[in-house]
């Protein structure tokens, strides 16, 4: 294998992305197939590269900036997964996006995103990683902004949130490089003392913000409404999760060694639990297909962070397995949402219903993915959640309880979503709705099948993809593949799922339809005012942050104007006062001038005499 082959996963999508920009407006279809062909070729190459090891170092700049890449198991795995999603979603887009504007830009950003993700994953130099990582801001901005005319507000929000997190990561990288004395990631192994913990926190901010955890999440629900749907399936649901959790795993396993005694482990677990619970609470009350999913895209990150934060092997394996599982079922769910949007013309749950009969394949794919995300055995989400539960319970039962409660609410909100969209009476004006075209169904079917495969034969992904990331030494000979879970925990999980189902039946009966199944929670005494405020974005960290920024800006403006007042008013007045005083002495009278001169002479003489 030529050593330069390692370049391909970066160079091919980036070059193709630039070529895609050259397509003209009316060549949207050609551009779509070009993109699909490139992603197919890329998938083949990523498959070929998976499991191989290679590294490459080229000089790039002074001060130790070396363009060094390293292909090994973990990076090959993320690259393969990204390539898979890239291909499937590109195929899906050929049908979904065909009547949109700015198609050449969409596919260009699509391919550039893929190339930059690969660059960030392959990089073995922290600067190179940050370079690709932060470059993703540009395509994120571009992909949201082309969604619709007013989407730029969301694009700005996404850019600011991610940009702030990336700057924190920049500080963390600066600290890490200073402490380690090298920029090469594979050579950095720092113990967690006071300062390296601070560096860890800065790096962690970058990682979890990329993954979309709280408090860096609030652009995702807005983007779900504004941005083109395949973008949601590709970036926030799949690639950003893969990338963010990849880096979180790198810093907790390689660059630093996160152990259960460090204060960082509870910090991560608490962030994880809060993210799980708050986001799923918001998901429960959503009345839009895509917005509901987007809150789950936030909530599920909490499980991954919780898993990795436990710092025990079973939790880490669970967290990483959940990363790939989530990317699969969440993009499948978004794709099903896209199918509904395309065929029925809306994603407003109040206007949907009874689509099961008209879109049976979409419905089945939805059911599989929803069962996976809710942790129903034997789907993949069940396996990874059980592993995370094991890890959480090993630390403290509170974390476990939070995770379990999250599962209850997840199941409840998906029952509501499925009921409202696919069951019940068909909406009046949707009698002519048909099944989605094949180009949209095939990706959904493939992912749904994989969800089942990864659950039933979980040894396949666990032994080949996930466990090698931790390495033999850390696993101490354990394997987490197979079906040997604690009976009590499985029983509890099943009980919670049955509870969610009963809750849904009761709620739906009470409200008279599927959409209102969670209303008894939405309008519960304490929750109702809180929900109202949350819906008005009073708790949005972005809005709160902007308010603080406005205060800082007002103070700064005051200081600036105050200083300007000194120049424009005070200095001028003082000068005029001084000169008008001097002017008064100039009376034109000889006698006055003579007396001034005489007085001056006396002063000079006195000074000279005094000096001697």
């Amino acid at each position, binding site marked *: 294998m030529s050593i330069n082959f390692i370049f391909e996963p970066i160079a091919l999508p980036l070059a193709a992305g630039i070529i895609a920009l050259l397509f003209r407006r009316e060549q949207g279809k050609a551009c779509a197939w070009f993109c699909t062909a490139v992603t197919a070729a890329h998938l083949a190459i990523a498959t070929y590269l998976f499991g191989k090891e290679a590294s490459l170092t080229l000089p790039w700049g*002074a001060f130790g900036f070396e363009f060094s890449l390293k292909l090994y198991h973990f990076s090959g795995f993320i690259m393969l997964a990204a390539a898979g999603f890239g291909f499937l979603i590109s195929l899906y887009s050929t049908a979904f996006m065909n009547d949109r504007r700015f198609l050449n830009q969409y596919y260009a950003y699509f391919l550039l995103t893929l190339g930059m993700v690969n660059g960030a994953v392959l990089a073995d130099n922290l600067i190179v990683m940050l370079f690709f990582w932060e470059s993703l801001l540009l395509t994120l901005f571009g992909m949201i902004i082309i969604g619709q005319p007013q989407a730029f507000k969301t694009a700005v929000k996404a850019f*600011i949130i991610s*940009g702030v997190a990336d700057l924190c990561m920049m500080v963390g*990288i600066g600290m890490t490089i200073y402490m380690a004395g090298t920029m090469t990631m594979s050579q950095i192994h720092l113990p967690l003392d006071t300062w390296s913990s601070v560096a860890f926190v800065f790096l962690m901010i970058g990682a979890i913000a990329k993954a979309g955890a709280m408090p860096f999440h609030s652009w995702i629900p807005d983007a779900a409404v504004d941005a083109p749907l395949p973008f949601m399936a590709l970036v926030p649901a799949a690639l950003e999760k893969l990338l963010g959790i990849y880096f979180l795993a790198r810093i907790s396993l390689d660059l630093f060694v996160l152990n259960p005694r460090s204060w960082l482990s509870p910090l991560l677990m608490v962030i994880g639990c809060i993210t799980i619970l708050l986001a799923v609470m918001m998901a429960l009350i959503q009345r839009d297909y895509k917005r509901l999913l987007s809150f789950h895209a936030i909530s599920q990150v909490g499980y991954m962070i919780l898993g990795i934060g436990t710092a025990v092997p079973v939790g880490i394996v669970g967290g990483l397995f959940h990363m790939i599982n989530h990317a699969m079922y969440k993009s499948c769910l978004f794709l099903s949402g896209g199918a509904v949007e395309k065929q029925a013309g809306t994603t407003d749950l109040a206007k949907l219903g009874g689509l099961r009969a008209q879109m049976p394949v979409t419905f089945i794919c939805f059911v599989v993915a929803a069962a996976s995300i809710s942790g129903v055995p034997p789907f993949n989400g069940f396996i990874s959640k059980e592993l995370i539960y094991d890890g959480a319970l090993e630390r403290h039962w509170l974390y476990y309880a939070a995770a379990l409660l999250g599962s209850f609410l997840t199941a409840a909100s998906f029952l509501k979503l499925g009921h409202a969209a696919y069951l019940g009476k068909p909406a009046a004006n949707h009698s002519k709705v048909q099944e989605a075209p094949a180009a949209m169904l095939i990706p959904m079917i493939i992912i749904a099948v994989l969800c089942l495969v990864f659950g039933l034969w979980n040894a396949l992904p666990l032994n080949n993809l996930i466990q090698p990331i931790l390495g033999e030494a850390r696993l101490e000979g354990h394997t987490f593949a197979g079906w040997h879970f604690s009976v009590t925990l499985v029983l509890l999980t099943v009980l919670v799922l049955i509870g969610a189902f009963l809750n849904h039946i009761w709620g739906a009966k009470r409200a008279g339809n599927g959409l209102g199944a969670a209303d008894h929670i939405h309008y519960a005494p304490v929750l109702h005012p809180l929900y109202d405020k949350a819906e008005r974005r009073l708790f949005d960290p972005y809005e709160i942050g902007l308010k603080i*920024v406005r205060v*800082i800006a007002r103070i*700064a403006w005051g200081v600036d104007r105050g200083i300007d007042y000194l120049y424009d008013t005070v200095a001028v007045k003082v000068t005029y006062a001084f000169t008008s005083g001097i002017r008064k002495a100039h009376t034109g009278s000889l006698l006055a001038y003579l007396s001034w001169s005489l007085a001056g002479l006396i002063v000079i003489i006195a000074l000279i005499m005094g000096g001697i």
Partner: protein
Amino acid sequence: MKFECILSLAVLAPLLGSLLLPLIGRWSERTRNWLSLILVLTSLCMAAMLIPLVTAGLTVSVQLAGFTLFYADTLAVFMAIVSSLVGAVIVLYSFGYISHYPWRNEYYFMVVLFLGAMMGLIFARNLLILYLFWEITAFACWRLIGFFREKSYVLKADKAFLVTVGGALVMLLGFIIIYNQTGSFDLDQIQKALHGRPIANIAVVLILFGILSKSATVPLHTWLPDAGVAPSPVTALLHAAVLVKIGVYVYARLFLTGMEIEPIWHTVVPAIAAISALVSAGAALIETNLKRLIAYSTISQIGFIFLGLSIGNEIGIAGGLLYILMHGIAKGGLFLCAGIVEQNAKTKDITKMGGLITTMPVTAVAFLLCAFSVMGIPPMGGFFSKYMVITGAVTSGNIVITLTFLVGAFLTIIYLLRAFTLVFLGESKLAPGFRPAEGSPSMVFSVAFLGVLSIISGLFINFPSQLVQTAVHQMLGLI
């Protein structure tokens, strides 16, 4: 001898050539315009020809009767290239921008004279020569800010002149104290006489006064936003790319290479820079005049440059120098884009614009690319300089200053995006039916060139970073 000629030509071509411009302008506009560009490009080429020599660790000096007139090391060559490169683009842009205003002869005369004086200042080896060129730039700046001759504009030009010249006079006192301490104005002689002893703190304070007033650092900064009344290429030239870099350059020249200063200044100057970066970034968020907003942004970014140069470690200094290059390109581009917008939309108030991307796509994209570079987003060049400056602050271990700059960097993202969205996106708030057109070809080419250069400087970071590394090693006496 050959290199001495090159060095002299780099300074004298624009300095003396500028005197011819008004005369030629009476005869042919085109010839005058192209000659101005050629004069500036001469500086650029001459400076570029010195690169192989200075990167080999050698220096050139031009002697006149035993008196060192000009002197070139890597730092000076680097600075000369940055100034003349951005200067050349701005002159090209002026072809379109200034073509329908009166007093064009004076305009080109002053712009080229300014760039010539800048070259002289960069290559000066003697404090008095440095002071002389410093004041020539102030004079040219004064004429150019008041170029439109309106009463209030002239007052703002006077303000800029008084603040910068006032600062310079105070700085001259500092030079005299150094003379008293060492018996010379020549930087070589001064260095020899000091024997590594630090110079008097009072001299540092007085010189800092001049530097901070020229580089528009809080609290000596308010002349800079006011100077936005100048023609846009002038604001780009003076207030983004070249003039405000004089202060930082002289700081590097005097306090990093020539003389030792007490270690306390490695905390005091970054602290001033941090306050300056924060105050002006906050003000940029409130400001609604596009050119004043970008001017506040300049003040804020100058703070980052000062931070890098003054924090006292190698990576910081390198970051500061790289920042001069990246900021010059990107901020010059922003001002030039603002010029196109202001000239065609007939307003500077960003709250009254909107939706301009539909009619000025190239300007909008160039603005965005340059803004990304100022924010420090890869693959733009600004990413590397911001990273290195922040790392310099981290390396120094001063947490408060690092966090202040982190907040400054957050604000940079917010105010630039705010400006971009208000000007180019959303609904148009201009008069109904009024759709401003794209600028003239030379103007659009100039902004597109700077936008593309922002990307190229990041992708091919190798070349500028090598040059900066050599400069830093030379400055710190490592080679």
